[in-house]
């Protein structure tokens, strides 16, 4: 029976967004978190909104089932598939991600994460251009010029500004915000714009053009003022911006979904990364993507360790092949290729294009999620799992690739993703007649 006395958990980690703030002070009463000191509005919603739900541990074809029955059915679906796909992984621990990839290896599956519909194009751009990078700690201590492009941190990563990038006093920015120039570039005046020193309202689908003009200006190329009309930002403003970027001591460009999601995709991000690289002829300048789900960066890292590539991988031939557009999940579902799926900590039924959702509804799939979602409702097998960071320990990666430990607040009667996946992996091995060496359990 849960204790009735309030418990205080210090230095807990919030896993709602990629900031992974690890200074949470949680008040736990029984099986609920009643206070989350230091959490932003999204973090408060995360902690206060995740409690033990009145749901069965598993559902098979919509009916309550035991864990063992569900594992057996799920394993048969996945082991018997010809072209299965693994998708999600962004809201679970690195330890669970590793086992999911082991399953994918066992069954010859595609391995894809929510990165493919987030910063996947950015990942492709990183491979082409490279990333001049730094940690958020370096930004806090050194950055005197901070630009956000296609990003709305005020609503998507609310503590980013206060904890890392614009407000805090740092070793070399002792006056905090006063020592910094903050620029926001976006197609609309979001809630982030009023807090910036400079807000540049760019025309939709003109990011590629704007970034290449900036690259040209950095190199000293003169442009016709008409380019300003094309982009929506006067040329004189762009020239002033470049001057400020060149003259700063430590600049950083944080880019959000506005670049990889719009026309041009990886080409937009390539332009941004190349601009940052060019600026290093004059000063220190860095680029970082703004990440959403708590451990999507962890998924990038783990999938990269295990396969050599960050997303969009096929293990069907027994070795990893990387091909976004071929092995990525929107594509394998939309083209009707996948005949089964394992979905971990993601909700494609809520977020994918309709043809992909229609096909997913036609194939048997297995899902692990703490909450009931549209994806859970149509699954052949669904597991209710404990919430990472609230009920389970583990490792997660902050958006700047720094690993952070989780400090759970209270126990859950539901199994962790890691445990369910380990059971699944063992059962698949049994069905395949493969010895369970070094069981993950």
């Amino acid at each position, binding site marked *: 029976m849960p204790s009735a006395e309030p418990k205080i958990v210090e230095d807990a980690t919030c896993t*709602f*967004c990629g900031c992974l703030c690890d200074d949470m002070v949680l008040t736990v009463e029984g099986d609920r978190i009643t206070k989350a000191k230091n959490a932003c*509005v*999204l973090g*408060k*919603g*995360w902690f*206060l*909104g*995740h409690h033990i739900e009145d749901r069965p541990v598993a559902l098979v074809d919509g009916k309550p089932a035991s864990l063992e029955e569900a594992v057996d059915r799920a394993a048969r679906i996945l082991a018997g598939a010809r072209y299965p796909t693994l998708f999600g992984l962004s809201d679970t621990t690195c330890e669970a991600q590793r086992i999911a990839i082991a399953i994918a290896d066992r069954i010859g599956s595609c391995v*894809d994460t929510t990165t*493919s*519909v*987030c910063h*996947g*194009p950015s990942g*492709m751009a990183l491979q082409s251009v490279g990333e001049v990078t730094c940690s958020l700690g370096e930004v806090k201590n050194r950055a005197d010029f901070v630009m956000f492009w296609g990003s*709305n941190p005020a*609503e*998507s990563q*609310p503590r980013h500004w206060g904890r890392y990038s614009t407000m805090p006093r740092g070793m070399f920015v002792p006056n905090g915000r006063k020592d910094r120039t903050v620029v926001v570039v976006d*197609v*609309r*005046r*979001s*809630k982030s714009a009023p807090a910036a020193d400079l807000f540049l*309202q760019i025309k*939709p*689908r003109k990011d590629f053009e704007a970034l290449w003009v900036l690259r040209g200006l950095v190199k000293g190329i003169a442009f016709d003022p008409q380019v300003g009309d094309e982009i929506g930002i006067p040329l004189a403003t762009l020239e002033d911006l470049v001057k400020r970027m060149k003259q700063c001591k430590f600049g950083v460009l944080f880019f959000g*979904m*506005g670049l*990889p*999601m*719009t*026309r041009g*995709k*990886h080409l937009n991000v390539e332009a941004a990364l190349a601009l940052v690289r060019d600026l290093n002829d004059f000063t220190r300048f860095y680029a970082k993507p703004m990440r*959403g789900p708590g451990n999507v960066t962890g998924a990038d890292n783990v999938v990269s360790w295990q396969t050599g590539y960050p*997303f*969009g991988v096929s293990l069907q031939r027994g070795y990893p092949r990387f091909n*976004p*557009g071929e092995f*990525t*999940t*929107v*594509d394998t579902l*939309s083209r009707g290729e996948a005949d089964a799926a394992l979905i971990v900590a993601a*909700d494609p039924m*809520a*977020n*994918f*294009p*309709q*043809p*992909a*959702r229609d096909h997913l509804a036609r194939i048997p799939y297995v899902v692990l999620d703490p*909450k*009931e*979602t*549209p994806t859970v409702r149509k699954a052949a097998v669904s597991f209710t799992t404990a919430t990472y960071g609230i009920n389970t320990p583990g490792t997660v990666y902050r958006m700047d690739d720094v690993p952070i430990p989780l400090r759970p607040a209270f126990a859950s009667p539901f199994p962790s993703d890691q445990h369910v996946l380990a059971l699944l992996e063992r059962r698949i091995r049994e069905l395949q007649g493969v010895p369970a060496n070094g069981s993950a359990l």
Partner: protein
Amino acid sequence: MTETKPGEIFILIPGGTSRHGTSLNEGKFTAAYLEETSTLSMNPGDMARLALKAGDRVRLRTKQGSIELACAAAKPDELPSGLLFLPFGDWTSRLMGTETHGTGMPDSTALDVEVEKV
């Protein structure tokens, strides 16, 4: 007063909001989440020009699909004329195509949509 001509093209920008994030934690079937992801923000001048008031329903159509939802006025300087904003969710997903141009990412923002008053 001028009404929307069939097929007038706007640009839809899906995105995140604080309320989208907080209601997400409560659940994707809650009234708050459903309302947040199904309320379209429009430039007030565009709304006036199209004889729309807050709560009126509009139909958005792309090559992929169409949705009908209520509209609300954005803050005066938030959205330029011709731009629409809708938090990510089931409604925005219905308008997305499947072409990922070899990246895995479908065109998910800055979508050309036809708008008409329902």
